[in-house]
């Protein structure tokens, strides 16, 4: 069956996580993604631990559904090969520091001249204007800068960093993927390629748009609220009798009576202090203390049964050990186990979308640096006259 991006070739000059994850998603939609790395591979992601059989998991994970070639773009012969691949590509993605790709002679103007239909993405941490233009950034530095630590932490406590250092990297990546799809649609209609610029900082702020809106409205820094939501209530975690926590979320007014019934607190349904969401938010502290007392009287399982029965959102705090075998995860392929050529069997993120007419995937591992060079050059009809073994 046809794939969404069948016949679309991506010249992938990305490093670390932001760029690679974006092109990985294009690969999962069926694009032919050719990852071009300097000899020895993408140094940054190769040194990030943990490793599996000596290879960085970040590298393995961010490069599914790609083919690997090494080119030393500082050498004329290798650059000539790159330009031949570029001639036959549709999308060019790079996330080097602003200025770096121009020094390699592959800035937008050069690439667009070789291939005017090229969709060219330049992603960076802070963009190419302003006092921080050209500065490098990685997930935790952008986390620190972009304000989101200030809204995350214990209730009215100190703001903290999200310690799985990838969420803003991957958020930026998904923005790139989306923009490439927009530009492919545009090209289908106009015949023209174009340049796309994306900054991690802007992507990170867009991800906080609902929280920044609160600040714009009040002029006051929103405090961390532990597990609680700012604009809906009750929407937080409560400790239960078994000393485990349950997450509950009443986001809609029509969920409130059912929630009260599930907790056998029917008298709250008609309590004017809690009649609407804005009132519950205004009285969040007194409401939470009443509910905290109630939840402690029965275990998580009991409340889950009752809240499910009333169609009120609730769930446990799961761990990977539970998730990897969870029937919901397995049924939807949210996490899948694949065989890889070099690293054994591995759990990987499932596809984030389902296309019923043109299924995405399957997910397959990428490879080691340079692994597919001969195959790629043969397929593209590019003669490698650099001597045996290609780039050294």
């Amino acid at each position, binding site marked *: 069956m046809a794939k969404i991006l069948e016949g679309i070739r991506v010249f992938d000059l990305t490093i670390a996580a932001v760029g690679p994850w974006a092109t990985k998603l294009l690969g999962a939609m069926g694009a032919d993604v050719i990852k071009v790395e300097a000899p020895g591979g993408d140094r940054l992601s190769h040194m990030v631990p*943990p490793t599996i059989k000596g290879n960085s998991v970040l590298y393995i994970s961010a490069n599914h559904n790609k083919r690997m070639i090494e080119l030393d773009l500082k050498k004329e012969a290798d650059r000539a090969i790159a330009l031949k691949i570029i001639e036959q590509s549709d999308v060019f993605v790079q996330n080097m520091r602003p200025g770096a790709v121009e020094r390699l002679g592959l800035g937008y103007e050069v690439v667009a001249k070789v291939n005017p239909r090229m969709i060219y993405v330049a992603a960076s941490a802070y963009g190419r204007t302003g006092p921080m233009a050209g500065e490098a950034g990685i997930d935790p530095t952008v986390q*620190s800068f972009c304000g989101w630590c*200030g809204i995350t932490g214990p209730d009215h406590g100190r703001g903290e960093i*999200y310690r799985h250092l990838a969420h803003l990297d991957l958020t930026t990546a998904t923005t790139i993927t989306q923009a490439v799809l927009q*530009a492919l649609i545009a090209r289908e209609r106009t015949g023209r390629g174009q340049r*796309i610029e*994306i900054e991690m900082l802007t992507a990170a702020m867009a991800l906080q748009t609902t929280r920044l809106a609160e600040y714009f409205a009040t002029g006051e820094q929103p405090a961390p609220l532990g597990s609680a939501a700012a604009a809906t209530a009750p929407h937080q975690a409560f400790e239960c009798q078994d000393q485990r926590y349950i997450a509950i979320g009443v986001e809609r007014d029509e969920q409130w009576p059912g929630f009260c019934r599930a907790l056998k607190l029917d008298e709250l349904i008609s309590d004017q202090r809690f009649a609407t969401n804005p009132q519950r938010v205004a009285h969040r502290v007194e409401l939470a203390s009443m509910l905290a007392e109630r939840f402690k009287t029965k275990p998580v399982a009991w409340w889950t049964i009752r809240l499910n029965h009333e169609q009120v959102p609730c769930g446990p705090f799961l761990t990977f050990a539970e998730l990897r075998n969870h029937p919901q995860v*397995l049924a*939807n392929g949210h996490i899948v186990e694949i065989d890889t050529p070099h690293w054994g069997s591995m759990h990987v993120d499932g596809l984030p979308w389902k296309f019923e007419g043109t299924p995405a995937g399957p997910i397959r591992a990428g490879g080691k640096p340079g692994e597919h060079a001969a195959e790629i050059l043969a397929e593209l009809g590019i003669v490698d006259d650099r001597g045996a073994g290609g780039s050294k």
Partner: protein
Amino acid sequence: MSNAGSLDGFRVLDFTQGLCGPFCTMQLGDGGAEVIKVEPPAGDFARRMGPPFIGGESAVFLSLNRNKKSVVIDLESASGREMAARMAREADVVVEDFGPGGATTRGLDYAQLRAANPKLIYCSITPFGEEGPLRHLPGSELVVQAMAEYSASLGRIGDPPVRVGADIASLNTGTFAAQAILGGLFHRLRSGEGQRVAVSEFGALLHMRGIMWSSLSDPDDWYGFHLDHYIKPPDYGYQTKNGSFYFILRRGNSEDWDRLVMELGMEEALADSRFDDYGRAATSIGRHATEVKPIWEKAFAKRTREELVDLVKSIGGDAVPIMEYPELLAHPQVAALEVVAEIDHPTAGRLKTIRPVARLSDTPNSIRLAPPTLGQHTDEILRATGLTQGG
């Protein structure tokens, strides 16, 4: 001509409420699509999220609904359902989050709409996915974060759970939904075929933590920030005389490193093996970061955050202040990138909003319409589609 958006001419019929679907369709609107937001008579429930409210409108709602037109249609009535189905015939995209069976009972499922509009791209958004034992259950931002293990990377073991303060389950899923729709439209342009696409919030967040599932498959050692965040204490960056900052050293040489250590009065670090390799394993993401943090902070206590940021940068490292919103929004870099845009709203006045992220040189994203008041465009849209309320 060069100012046309990439999605100009596409019409999106949006039945979603809350955060996730509206964030998706706002991005389609940013691209130039005409987004018709179909609301029940009581309005999208996000209109009641808050306080804060501005001019009677929820700040959360306002942040997710620019570039849309609001039409009130009561889908609980047969005439309302008929009207919606007729509008779907003229749509390129339908987005719904009715939940399992919800679209079918309203006469708006894919099979029903495709019959009259075979080129339609139909997107369903669910909390947990369309298969499996939880497919019938409702979700919420926190519930999805909790089930996707997000709290395991925050707070302290044994303490009450902490969520990510941003609405990531909703907004990251909204972006995946936009991707799915764009993918569908691209395929339609090339093949003429419509299709149904779907995303889930649980699936989206489990995707976003994917590096960890692989890290946990068969790691060579229990080391690295895709593993040890589980057992690390909360990370606040590094305290200085006047606030916190964060720094790493990816580059550098011996001379620069020695200079940093001398300037900070940390000569003892030169003989401390945890600071080997120009201190790389001793800075924020290094193997010894947690244990040597007090050594750094003792030296940092005498200096300001700004001095330290400059000092680290001067030796080739990356350093940034840890900022909250007031400082961030006053920062010249945010101004230089024009991250904050403004738009006039009929009742809420001049609104600030975060601009579309991607800057496309030939078919730019744009902000054209303020978030609508409830039913603001009902007459206009129904007249344009030859429909009248109750008919």
